[in-house]
C-alpha cells in the first residue's frame, strides 16, 4: 500500500479531511515525484486547494479542521505529534492565488524569512536576494529599485516576487494555488516558463483551472471530483486518453 519509492517526495495515504463535520476530501492516496511538476485539476469546490494546503499544514490555521490518514514527506508523517509545522513550511513553500507581497520593500520581502531563520551576514543576504530574484526571472526588472515598496509592482511582478520570496527559503517543494489566475497572458507565460525552469531543482505541485496550462507545464496530472481523486497519471495520458468518463468530460469542457 505504502509506496515510498525513491523518486516520491510526498505520499498521502488514505487521507480524509474535514471542515467541522463536512468531509472535503475522501481517501486520497497518491505520490508526488521529485523534480516533476504535478498539476491538480478539477471543478470548483472539489477540494484542490484544501488538498494543497494540507501538504504543508496550512489548514492548521483554520479552526475546527481535522485530518485522517497520513501525509509522508520524505517518508515521515508531517502530522505526527513530534513534527513542527513551522519546519515543514520551511521545506514546503507556497505561492497563493492572489499575489500577496508584504507591505515592505522588494528587498525586505525576499530577506524577511531568511533573516528570521538565522542568515544575518549582509553579503549572504545580498547574494540570496540576487539569486532568488534571478530564479524568479524578476532580477532585471527590479535590480535598480530594490528599496521601493513591493506594493508598487504590477500584479505579474508581485507574483514573481512572491515566488522569489518562497525560493529564498530554499524549499524542496513549492505548492502553487492557481498562481496565474489573477494575471494577464504575458505574465502568465512568464510564470509558466519559470515553472518549467524551476522543476530542475524543485518539486512543484500546481492547482490550475486552465487545461492548456496543465498540459503545458506538468508531467503528472491528478483529476479531483467531489473530494475524491478520480484519475492520476502522466499528463499526456490524461489529456489524450483518459480512462475515466468524468475526466474526459471535464477536460473537454463538457463538465458544467
Amino acid at each position, binding site marked *: 500500500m505504502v509506496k515510498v519509492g525513491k523518486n516520491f517526495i510526498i505520499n498521502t495515504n488514505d487521507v480524509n479531511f474535514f471542515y467541522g463535520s463536512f468531509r472535503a476530501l475522501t481517501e486520497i492516496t497518491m505520490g508526488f515525484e521529485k523534480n516533476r511538476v504535478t498539476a491538480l485539476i478539477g471543478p470548483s469546490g472539489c477540494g484542490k486547494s484544501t488538498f494543497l494546503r494540507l501538504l504543508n499544514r496550512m489548514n492548521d490555521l483554520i479552526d475546527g479542521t481535522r485530518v485522517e490518514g497520513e501525509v509522508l514527506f520524505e517518508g515521515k508523517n508531517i502530522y505526527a505529534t513530534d513534527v513542527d509545522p513551522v519546519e515543514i513550511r520551511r521545506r514546503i513553500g507556497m505561492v497563493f492565488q492572489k499575489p500577496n507581497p508584504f507591505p515592505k520593500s522588494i528587498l525586505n520581502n525576499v530577506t524577511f524569512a531568511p533573516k*528570521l531563520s538565522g542568515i544575518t551576514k549582509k553579503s549572504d543576504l545580498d547574494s540570496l536576494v540576487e539569486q532568488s530574484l534571478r530564479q524568479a526571472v524578476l532580477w532585471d526588472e527590479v535590480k535598480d529599485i530594490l528599496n521601493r515598496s513591493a506594493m508598487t509592482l504590477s500584479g505579474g511582478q508581485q507574483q514573481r516576487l512572491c515566488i522569489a520570496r518562497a525560493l529564498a527559503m530554499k524549499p524542496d517543494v513549492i505548492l502553487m494555488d492557481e498562481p496565474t489566475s489573477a494575471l494577464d497572458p504575458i505574465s502568465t507565460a512568464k510564470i509558466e516558463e519559470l515553472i518549467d525552469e524551476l522543476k530542475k531543482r524543485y518539486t512543484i505541485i500546481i492547482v490550475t483551472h486552465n487545461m492548456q496550462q496543465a498540459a503545458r507545464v506538468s508531467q503528472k496530472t491528478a483529476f479531483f471530483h467531489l473530494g475524491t481523486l478520480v484519475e492520476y497519471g502522466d499528463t499526456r495520458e490524461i489529456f489524450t486518453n483518459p480512462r475515466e468518463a468524468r475526466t474526459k468530460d471535464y477536460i473537454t469542457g463538457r463538465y458544467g
Partner: protein
Amino acid sequence: MKWRYFKQAVFFTVVRLSALVISLTLLGILAYIFFNGYRAITWDFLTLPPTDSMTRGWIMPAIVGTFYLTIGAISVALPLGIVSATYLSEYAKQGPFIRIIRIGVNCLAGVPSVVFGLFGLGFFVVFLKFGSSILAGSLTLGILILPTIIGASEEALKGVPQTFREASLALGVSKWQTIYRIVLPSALPGIMTGSILGIGRAAGETAPIMFTAAAFFTAILPKSIFDEVMALPYHIYVLATAGTYIEQTRPLQYGTVLVLVALVLGIDLIAIVIRSAMRRKKRW
C-alpha cells in the same frame, strides 16, 4: 410618486437639521469658552504658579501635572492594551471564555470614572501605599483608558489582511514572529489613533485623579513619581467650587478650561492627522 419624493425630502431635512444642531452645539460651547477665557491667557498665566489664594492664579503646575499624568497613563495602558488585544484576537481560541472577557472589557469602558477613582484610592493609594501621587494617578487613569486601547487595538488587528499572516506562515515563519514582525506593524496606525483618543480622555478626567493624584495647590513642581501634582481638570473644579474667591477667579476658570479644551482637541487633531497620513501610505 410625488409622495415618495416628499418623504425623502422630509427625511433628508431631518438628517441635515440633526447634523446642524450637533455642530452648532459644539461650536457654541467652544465659542463660549473661547470668548470667556481668552483674556486670561497670557504668557505668565501659562508659565507661573498660582498666587494670592489663587485669585491671581497662574496654571503652570497644573499643565505640567496633567502632562505627567497623561504620559504615565499611556505608558501603563499602551503596552498592556496591545498585549491584551493581541492575545484576544490572535492567540485565544474564540469561545465562551473569550466572549466573557470581551464583555468584561466592554463593561469596564462603561464604568463611571468616579468608580475608577475610588478603586485607585483603595488599591493604589491605600493598599499599595503609593499615597496620593503621580504613580497612583497614572495607574488609575491607565486602567480607565485600557478598554479604549484594547478596543482600538483589536479593531486594528482585525483590519490586517489574513493574506499577510498566511504569506508569512507559509514561509516557515513562526506564529509569534509573524505577529511581531508583520501583523503588529501593519496594525500600528490604527492602534496609535485609538490610543491618542485615549490620551485625550485621560487628560480631561477629574474624578479618577481627585483622590489619587491631584493636589489642591503646589507651587513647586513634582520631583518624583511619588509626589502629588496639580492637574488642569481638578484645578478647574477647585477654582469653581472650593476656592475662597470663586467670583473673582471666574475669568481664570474659563482660561483654564480653554487651555484644557485646546490641549484635548490638539491631541485629537494629531490623531486625525496621523491616521490620514498612514491611510494614504498603506495600499492593501
